Structures are given as C-alpha cells and as structure tokens.
C-alpha cells in the first residue's frame, strides 16, 4: 500500500471521478474524508463499502462554494485524524449554455464551485501542510476543456483554465515547504456529468477522436491521482497532467 496511514480529503467524493479517487486512495491505505453536497445515499453507500473492505473513511456534507465549508470540514478532519496529507479538489459542476444567452447565475455557480471551492479548500489546508507538516500533496481536478473548448462552455472553460493557472502559482509558493500542487485534466470520462454529451456523440468521440478508441473511466483518473499523491509523484509540481486517451492531440482517425 502506497499511502498507508496518510490522511486524504476529497471534494465531490460520492459520485463519478471523485468516488473512484476515494476508493483508490482508501485501497492504498489512506484514511479518506470526502465531501458530498447532495448525494447522501451515495455517500453512505461509499462509506459502508470502504469500511467493509477494512478501510477508514468519513463523509462530510458541504457545499464547496460556501466559504465557511472548507474551514469546517478541514477542522473536522484535523480533529479526527490530526493532519491532512493529500487534498483532492474534485468537486465541479457544469451549466452549459451559449454565451449570448448565458444567465449570470450560471456563470457564478460554475466559477464559485470549480474555482472558488478549490481556493477555499487549498486555503484551509495550506498552513497545516506548509508550516506545520512541511509536506503535502494538493491535486486539483481540472479538465481538457481549459484548453480544448466546446461551444456552450465559456463558464466551465474559464473556471478550469483558472484552476490550471492557480495550480502553477500555488506550486511556486508552497514548493519550499515540500508541498506539491498539480492538476489532472480528464478528457471524456464516463460519469453523470458527461452523460448528455455521451448520449449525443459518445460513439463518435470514442471511435473517431480518441486515439485509444474508448472513453475514459473514473479509475483512469484515480490512477493518476494516486501517482501524484504517492512516493512516485514526489518530484512533480505545478503540472497539469492530461488524462484523455489522446483526445487533445486533435487527430481525427481515418
């Protein structure tokens, strides 16, 4: 086990990519706290599953876009387990729509969750990791949409591009305290979030646009998160690692 007795905190952990990350970190021996907003049943099931497999986990209900939520959750994790070794900012939302008609509320919701939520959680662990522990791994889940954009995603692309820039800037600041900060940028992954697009064009994307000829699975992302959180990732910081089966290479298969 690569992460024996380490303490991890994952936002957006009850479903999709976040769930696979929680499972993978727990499998590697980490104690995993995870945040969910609405999916209480899914969160409880995941808790049971991990506990039954001999792991340690705890679900926290919170909305990451609430500035107070991160303080409360991180305070709780500290009270439970005394440290935070790994933070995975995974919680994210989409509110797709063409820009000419974009409701400012949809802009705000996406930025508040994807970008501000990442800021709040990083801010809540930074002193603990950098000054008290002098070690830590922060992993932000971004998206290939930061650089390879689809129509209707100005808000989402802006939020993820900002997460990438934030990741690099924070890596510079915390490097001298052995805290690494990286991002993982998934392509098309089979989750609830990508369902609408997959139903419309999933086959076309997989067969024509992805060199590896399949859509990604949440586990494909979780594996890279484990790498960044574990001993093999110790010397990697400030990077955005694309995990998209080659989609962003831009090739159209003939």
């Amino acid at each position, binding site marked *: 086990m690569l992460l024996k007795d380490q303490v991890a905190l994952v936002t957006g952990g009850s479903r999709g990519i976040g769930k696979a990350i929680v499972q993978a970190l727990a499998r590697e021996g980490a104690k995993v706290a995870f945040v969910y907003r609405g999916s209480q049943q899914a969160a409880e099931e995941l808790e049971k599953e991990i506990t039954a497999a001999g792991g340690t986990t705890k679900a926290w209900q919170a909305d990451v876009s609430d500035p107070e939520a991160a303080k409360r959750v991180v305070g709780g994790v500290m009270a439970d387990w005394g440290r935070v070794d790994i933070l995975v900012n995974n919680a994210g939302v989409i509110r797709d729509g063409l820009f000419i008609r974009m409701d400012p509320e949809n802009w705000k919701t996406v930025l508040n969750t994807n970008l501000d939520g990442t800021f709040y959680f990083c801010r809540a662990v930074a002193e603990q990791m950098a*000054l008290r522990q002098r070690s830590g791994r922060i992993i932000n889940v971004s998206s290939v949409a930061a650089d390879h954009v689809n129509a209707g995603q100005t808000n989402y692309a802006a939020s993820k591009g900002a997460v990438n820039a934030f990741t690099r800037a924070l890596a510079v*600041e*915390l490097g*001298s*305290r052995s805290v690494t900060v990286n991002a993982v940028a998934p392509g098309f992954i089979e989750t609830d979030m990508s369902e609408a697009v997959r139903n419309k064009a999933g086959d076309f994307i997989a067969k024509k646009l992805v060199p590896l000829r399949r859509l990604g699975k949440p586990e494909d992302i979780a594996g890279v998160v484990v790498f960044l959180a574990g001993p093999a990732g110790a010397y990697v910081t400030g990077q955005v690692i694309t995990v998209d089966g080659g989609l962003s290479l831009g090739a159209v298969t003939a």
Partner: protein
Amino acid sequence: MPTEQEIFEKVRTTLVDALNVDDDEVKLQSRLRGDLNAESIDFLDIVFRLEKQFGVKIPREELFPESIFQGDPNFVTDGKVNEGGLKELQERMPFADLSDFRKDPRLEKMEDLFTVELIVNYLKKKLGG
C-alpha cells in the same frame, strides 16, 4: 520573564528550523533577507514558529510590516521613505532602531531593518521587558 540571552537562543532555534541555516550563522546583527536568505514565505514561517515557541500571538504586519508603504505617496517619495513614512514606521515599529535607515531611507533598504536583533527586541517588549 526570560533574559535577553534566553530570548536570543530561542529565536536562533526558530530561525535554524525555519530557514534551514546553521546555528553559528544566526547572529544578532544578521539580516533575515540579506544574510540568512529569507524569502516571503519564510517570514510567515518565522512568525508562526515564534508564536509557538514563545506562546504569544503576533498579529499580521506587527513584527514585519513589509508592505505598509506599497504605492502610498504620503510615505514614499522618489523611491525613498519620506518624513511621514519614517514617522509611521517608528510608530508601527517602536522596537526598531531606525537610525541607520534614516541615513539611507531607500524603500528597498527597508528589509535590512528585519534583523535577528529586531525580533529579539520585539519579543522583549512583547513579553513585558
């Protein structure tokens, strides 16, 4: 109340931990940036460690008011801290000896005020000495 020597020794331990320097590099007159190579985040780290080491609360910008003059023409003229700025500085840092700085008050020289001795003097006042 601890003696000046006791305060100095604890400050030295703090700086050795925070800055990864050797014991004998830390002298009373050492400048944190110029001599001990402290960077911005090191100042946070030093304050954090001093709070733990001495059991005191050190409000932000009280010990190292690094950025009080940023772009304020009332305090800085032509890149030099002016009379208003010097007065402000003395009020903010009653524990600091500004006599050398007054002779060459270029803004970029302000960081030379941040010495080991400054920390010791600050703590002496703070601990009621």
